[in-house]
């Protein structure tokens, strides 16, 4: 039997700015988000949530709610006991003090918004009416509303059963930081508090479920970033076989940004009650619920010190930080990422990073676009500016002197990354990124104008933020490729999109892998019934993992199609090409078969008739790509701002992003990712902040209290790319989803402090809001607490 070997990959579609296939349905109002799906006779659910940051539940009376016409069922934690098992942390640590996170509270609530009971009714309106009829007898307990409160001597416990409020204490070390500090000529320290907001996907969370009693299968629709992860969690909680649960992330999910990559109690409760009631049930989270129950990222407090020589070259860095884990540990990924992101693009021989992750009585925290990196970058980049100020050097020059050079890859930082592998940067060109960014900013010109304008009383500041982003994480991602009975190639991804354009991007990759026009390729996503294994869309990982899986599956399918064609055409040669939907002999294109004819022979077959010898039966292939370790994207941001000392208002006059995500598959979409990430970064840098009072009552629960950037707040940005392909996957791809976000708070804070240098003002807290700027000018906030 002859087998066609895969030809070297020709980039025809990869690198092309293809407009998206998804757009037409979304532009015409025919998208299919979860609540748009036509599910006849579906009941609607509403959750009753804790009103207290911390309280004991002494009793629940649901009888009046059950009597309301239209109510079909009311369930408390006690009513769903068979599946009330703790939902384990997705990223753990040997030292983790894990407090059980149950689908609904049983006898103690730990944050305002924690689900306590669920009502299922004929409409959401009635379900919400019924919530008001449920009586809960609470005994309020002292609540923890900050990491400082959590760590205070004699602090009350966020969980009554815990030994203290520390979820985990972890240290990373390279070299000998303490010895290096003792011997260093210069040491500077700073304390920075960085608050991040929530994900704020415009579509909130949503779950629907129907138990098919005939097929004995539970079908769940979930507006999730991680369908297989959610399916596995359900199988575990319900003690069901994974094949008896089909979990579908709808083709259209209205944004993710991290919070939808986690698994929540509501996702466990809704399918369970649908099974109990033998009726389809759906729950559509409203925005208020999103504010008080969808995971968010919140505050970290960094105490960082750096040692350096007379030239500003780094000798040592020590960063001890507190992370607000919230009421439960759904995963430690965020602080673990912070722990290894602080060193960034710089050569630092001695490193010490140390984490205190604290339980508090607020919404649990998890990844939000950037995921622990913006905080780390802010701490390090603020100190780079402070070194320059101390030595009287240009901050760009101090960075240049410390950058890892292009010939030093792979570069081992000396500590571990959150994927379990030694933190090893695979490729990059940091000096070129910085130089390109500063050139486009007209850095030297602005430095001159800064002096001139200051003489006129105008406060201009310039800020730089450099970063490295661990992305493309394992363990693996999978894809199937199949020639369907109609003669098209169907690429099935385990991963689910939330606006990234998978139906377009993966068709581009498949097209190049096969040498087949995109018109004959279709992509489907996010359905555990179509492909058994997958991980999910998070950590800017999919292009670097699912991309190679698609590439490999499609190369294998191409070979099987060509082998089939050779047998059908009775030719010896295996040198075929695709022309439209025809498989043609390269040297004589008149000798050909159509894809439909190929599928007829190899896939459809004739009942009971022997298959042509040499034809591979069943033209379906699959590939799972498991990267050896994370890839590292990188970038440099630079901003010019003007500060109004009267109001504290910051105006961004110019902003440049230099971005390196390795091979760019679709420039149109990658630019969209970076610019969208930048808007989130501006929110983090200047606007978004969750407030809780001392009893852990949330104070920001609507868009009237919480500022999301609109078109008026996001400044124009100039974006350029360099491409340092990753050697860790055959596409050379890295991640592009978070680079716009990560260094924005550092960049804006650096620029603001630069503008205020003549006042000696210190910007130690982010977001940098007008009140903070005004206070800094007045010299009222020299250090974050």
């Amino acid at each position, binding site marked *: 039997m002859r087998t066609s070997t895969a030809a070297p990959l020709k980039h025809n579609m990869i690198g092309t700015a293809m407009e998206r296939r998804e757009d037409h349905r979304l*532009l015409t109002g025919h998208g299919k988000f979860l609540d748009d799906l036509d599910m006849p006779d579906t009941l609607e659910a509403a959750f009753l949530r804790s009103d207290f940051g911390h309280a004991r539940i002494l009793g629940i009376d649901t009888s009046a709610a059950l009597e309301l016409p239209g109510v079909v069922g009311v369930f408390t934690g006690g009513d769903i006991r068979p599946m009330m098992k703790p939902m384990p942390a997705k990223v753990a640590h040997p030292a983790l003090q894990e407090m059980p996170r149950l689908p609904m509270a049983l006898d103690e609530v730990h944050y305002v918004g924690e689900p306590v009971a669920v009502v299922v009714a004929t409409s959401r*309106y009635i379900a919400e009416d019924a919530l008001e009829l449920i009586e809960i007898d609470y005994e309020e307990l002292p609540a923890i509303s900050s990491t400082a409160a959590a760590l205070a001597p004699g602090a009350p416990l966020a969980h009554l059963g815990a030994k203290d409020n520390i979820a985990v204490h972890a240290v990373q070390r390279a070299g000998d930081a303490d010895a290096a500090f003792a011997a260093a000529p210069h040491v500077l320290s700073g304390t920075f508090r960085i608050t991040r907001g929530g994900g704020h996907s415009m579509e909130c969370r949503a779950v629907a479920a129907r138990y098919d009693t005939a097929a004995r299968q539970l079908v769940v629709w979930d507006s999730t970033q991680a369908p297989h992860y959610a399916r596995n969690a359900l199988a575990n909680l319900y003690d069901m076989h994974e094949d008896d649960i089909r979990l579908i992330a709808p083709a259209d999910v209205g944004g993710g940004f991290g919070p939808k990559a986690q698994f929540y109690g509501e996702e466990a409760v809704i399918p369970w009650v649908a099974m109990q009631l033998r009726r389809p049930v759906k729950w559509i989270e409203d925005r208020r619920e999103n504010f008080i129950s969808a995971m968010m990222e919140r505050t970290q407090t960094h105490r960082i010190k750096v040692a350096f020589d007379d030239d500003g070259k780094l000798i040592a860095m020590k960063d001890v930080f507190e992370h607000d884990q919230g009421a439960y540990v759904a995963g430690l990924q965020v602080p673990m990422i912070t722990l290894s992101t602080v060193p960034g693009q710089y050569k630092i021989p001695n490193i010490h990073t140390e984490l205190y992750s604290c339980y508090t009585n607020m919404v649990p925290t998890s990844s939000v676009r950037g995921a622990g990196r913006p905080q780390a970058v802010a701490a390090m980049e603020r100190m780079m500016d402070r070194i320059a100020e101390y030595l009287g050097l240009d901050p760009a020059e101090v960075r240049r002197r410390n950058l890892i050079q292009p010939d030093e890859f792979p570069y081992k930082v000396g500590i571990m990354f959150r994927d379990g592998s030694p933190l090893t940067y695979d490729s990059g060109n940091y000096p070129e990124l910085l130089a390109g960014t500063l050139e486009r900013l007209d850095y030297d010109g602005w430095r001159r104008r800064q002096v001139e304008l200051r003489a006129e009383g105008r406060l201009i500041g310039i800020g730089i933020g450099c970063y490295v982003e661990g992305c493309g994480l394992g363990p693996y991602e999978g894809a199937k490729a199949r020639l369907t009975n109609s003669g098209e190639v169907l690429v099935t991804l385990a991963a689910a999109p939330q606006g990234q354009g998978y139906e377009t991007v993966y068709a581009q990759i498949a097209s190049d892998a096969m040498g087949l026009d995109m018109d004959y390729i279709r992509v489907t996503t996010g359905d555990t019934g179509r492909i058994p294994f997958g991980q999910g869309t998070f950590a800017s990982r999919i292009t670097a993992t699912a991309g190679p899986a698609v590439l490999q599956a499609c190369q294998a399918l191409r070979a099987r199609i060509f082998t089939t064609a050779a047998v059908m055409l009775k030719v010896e040669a295996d040198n075929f090409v695709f022309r439209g939907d025809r498989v043609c002999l390269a040297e004589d294109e008149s000798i050909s078969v159509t894809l439909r004819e190929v599928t007829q022979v190899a896939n459809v077959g004739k009942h009971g008739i022997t298959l042509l010898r040499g034809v591979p039966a069943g033209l379906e292939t699959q590939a799972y790509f498991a990267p050896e370790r994370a890839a590292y994207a990188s970038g440099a941001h630079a901003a010019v701002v003007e500060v109004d000392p009267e109001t504290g208002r910051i105006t961004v006059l110019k902003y440049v992003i230099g971005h390196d995500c390795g091979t760019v598959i679709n420039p149109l979409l990658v630019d969209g990712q970076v610019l969208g990430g930048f808007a989130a970064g501006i929110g983090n840098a200047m606007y978004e902040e969750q407030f809780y009072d001392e009893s852990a009552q949330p104070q920001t629960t*609507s868009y009237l209290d919480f500022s999301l950037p609109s078109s008026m707040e996001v400044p124009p940005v100039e974006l350029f790319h360099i491409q340092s392909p990753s050697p860790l996957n055959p596409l050379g791809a890295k991640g592009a989803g978070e680079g716009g976000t990560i260094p924005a708070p550092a960049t804006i804070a650096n620029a603001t402090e630069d503008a205020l240098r003549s006042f000696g003002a210190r910007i130690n807290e982010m977001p940098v809001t007008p009140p903070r700027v005004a206070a800094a000018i007045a010299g009222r906030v020299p250090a974050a607490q």
Partner: protein
Amino acid sequence: MNPDASDEAASQVRVTVNGREYRAVTDVRTTLADFLRHGLGLTGTHLGCEHGVCGACTVLLDGAAVRSCLMFAVQADGAKIETVEGLAEGDELSPLQESFHRNHALQCGFCTAGFLMSVTAALREGPVETDEQAREVLSGNICRCTGYAAMIKAVQETSMQVHGDKAAS
């Protein structure tokens, strides 16, 4: 429609949506958004915040852009409503939709209908020529995916296409 409507205060509503007349009985407390989505099956209009800030639910009511989450269906009785489903002519996208597509001005697409309706209303009032004007027109809606840059361009391009001749003459 709420199957238990009989148990609550219900009222008849007559509206014209995208040129087609509908008569329905609905609870008086049903929002216009829920009525359009679940009563009439026009699910292109989305709900992002249900308190009138995000703009995802924007529809045109007798030509004016309104938040359909902030009014009741019964308040729309007798009105002419336009939703995103009415923008294209069959399979042919409107110039604004086409421009959103070309400029990659949408990603997840959840907020898109609201933006399209807000901008459609603005472009009927007159040209949107500068960056500042485009930002102003878009500022009543929130998008969490795109960072707005592509939308700003798409609005200006569409304005040129729709009003270009008028501006030149």
